[in-house]
């Protein structure tokens, strides 16, 4: 059943292992670290969106909670980074449950707006609570992570560490999907009424998966803090939530591999576009990074109009690399 997924994880692990040797430049490794962080968040978001069918435009808030917990607890209270990350997870978990209880009763558009509202509130607070968060000036001097006495101070080390976490998250997600709990979630997506008539506690299950995805986002945020060593509210606005949803949707919401595909492609897109702009500059065509947003939107819209099952599904169909299973090819009506 999930053999194919395990093979996928293995292949990804191999690619990760050789990547630092293939990429000569620390800068590009850094880009791949950000890619890993987005993958982590998107895997959780995909469990929520693609499997349980609950949209969230609020995940930037959980990334922010993780990032700020790590940044503030280490710089202001001198905590160990791991403890701060743990605290971030706990805070995200509690927030997710508290927010999830009223929010996840809502459906569709209402749920989308409520989660968007939540993310906006968190962002406003990050900007406004200057005395605690530093406001727009942000927090600097965040310490690096250390693993068994080994400082994660080179891009290569951080790269391996973050991608290892992605692989672990994928392993968890794959197991979950193919378990009783995962089936319950997919049942909620299919029909909440039918699921609850079969004994699935839809309220609790939705909150649990929301909380789990919040934890993934929180860890991603903490890692961001300990990698960039500086944070401000800028990267955690609602646009980041929208970008995360874009990644999952572009890759394909109904498969965890779609989420990974989307996260990788869209995280690398700005680099691709800057290559493009260097190319275009030779023909005297000015490409500004300002256009990136437009291109994101255009990609998302084309995918939604022409490939609603996402790119991963499209790639798979085109290359027949992974042989089709009925389970995943005809998802989603």
């Amino acid at each position, binding site marked *: 059943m999930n053999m194919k997924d395990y093979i996928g994880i293995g292949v990804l692990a191999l690619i990760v292992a050789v990547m630092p040797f293939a990429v000569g430049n620390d800068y590009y490794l850094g880009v791949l670290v950000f890619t890993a962080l987005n993958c982590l968040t998107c895997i959780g978001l995909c469990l929520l969106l693609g499997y349980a069918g609950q949209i969230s435009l609020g995940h930037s808030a959980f990334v922010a909670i993780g990032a700020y917990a790590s940044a503030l607890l280490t710089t202001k209270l001198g905590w160990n980074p791991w403890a701060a990350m743990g605290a971030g997870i706990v805070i995200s978990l509690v927030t997710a449950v508290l927010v999830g209880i009223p929010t996840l009763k809502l459906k569709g*558009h209402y749920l989308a707006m409520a989660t968007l509202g*939540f993310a906006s509130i968190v962002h406003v607070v990050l900007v406004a609570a200057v005395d605690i968060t530093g406001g727009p000036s942000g927090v600097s001097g965040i310490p690096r992570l250390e693993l068994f006495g080994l400082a994660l101070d080179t891009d290569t080390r951080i790269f391996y560490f973050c991608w290892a976490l992605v692989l672990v998250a994928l392993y968890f997600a794959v197991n979950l999907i193919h378990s009783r709990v995962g089936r319950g979630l997919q049942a909620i997506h299919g029909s909440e009424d039918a699921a609850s008539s079969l004994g699935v506690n839809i309220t609790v299950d939705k909150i649990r998966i929301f909380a789990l995805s919040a934890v993934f986002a929180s860890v991603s945020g903490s890692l961001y803090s300990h990698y960039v060593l500086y944070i401000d509210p800028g990267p955690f606005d609602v*646009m980041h939530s929208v970008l995360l949803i874009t990644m999952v949707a572009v890759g394909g919401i109904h498969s965890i591999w779609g989420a990974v595909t989307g996260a990788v492609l869209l995280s690398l897109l700005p680099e691709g576009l800057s290559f493009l702009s260097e190319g275009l500059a030779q023909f005297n065509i000015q490409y500004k990074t300002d256009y990136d947003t437009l291109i994101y939107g255009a990609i998302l819209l084309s995918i*939604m109009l022409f490939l609603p099952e996402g790119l991963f599904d499209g790639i798979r169909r085109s290359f027949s690399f992974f042989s089709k299973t009925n389970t995943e090819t005809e998802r989603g009506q």
Partner: protein
Amino acid sequence: MMEPSSVSFSDILQYIIMGVQSGCIYALVAMGFNMIYNATGIINFAQGEFVVLGGLLMVSLTMTLNLPIPLSFAATTLAVTAAGVAMERFTINPVKNPTVLRLIIITIAVSIIVKGAAMGIWGKNSYFMRHFSGSEPLDFLGASLLPQTLWIVGTLVLIVAAYIYFFNHTMTGKCMRACAINRDAARLSGINDRRMVMLSFALSAGIGAIAGIIITPIIQMDYARGALLGIKGFGAAVLGGLGNSMGAIIAGILLGVLEAASAGLISSHYMDAIALFILLLVLFVRPSGIFGSSAAMRLKEF
């Protein structure tokens, strides 16, 4: 010599004026949400972008091309209306049997595109625009009142009057209402419901553009303002009962005044959070809004 720092009547009045001013804008955005919602059941996440487009286009026409304000007003409204129609034709209409999730993401995609295009065209700067009839404040019971505020309130009143006339006294308006109540029945009685959907996007975009035009002299427009305007407008729409435009107008102004009051009494930094907090509270406690009936809510499917 030093006065005690207490809140005087004129200060309170000043906050109310500020609140009504932004409340009118929320009300207009909420009306835009309602129009599309009534015709399609869709919440248009690109609603705030219409406002931004209206404001920025108006700035270009009046400030850069130096066109007279009435001409720019008409041209901007028309152009944004056309954008609304284009949105419906190219992104909503072609999708057959969409899921709610797909529709949400499609309108989000449109909002990203509009935002990206606005950034490409106008850059990231905030744009100042001259007031319609001077920026010399008027005295109003000890508080000061900008002529532009009168323009804003006046425009809202005119639009509401036009709205009531359109939906109660014109055939097209009545057809739109029929579609909103029961689309299948409307179609069976010969109403072209596809056309009604297109019309709803056109009107919604037009109202959004007008909101953007009249507020820009006061708030200065930039490309990124759409999301927050949109979500606050949605807050007004929900507060007034989704689909209920008269409710939305009262709710919008109420939201604006509450927001301004919180800026005065609590902190202007948390002002934006207040409106959002009210939105969440309403969604959690009474999703049918303060004027909507909960039974009617249950009948609508999401």
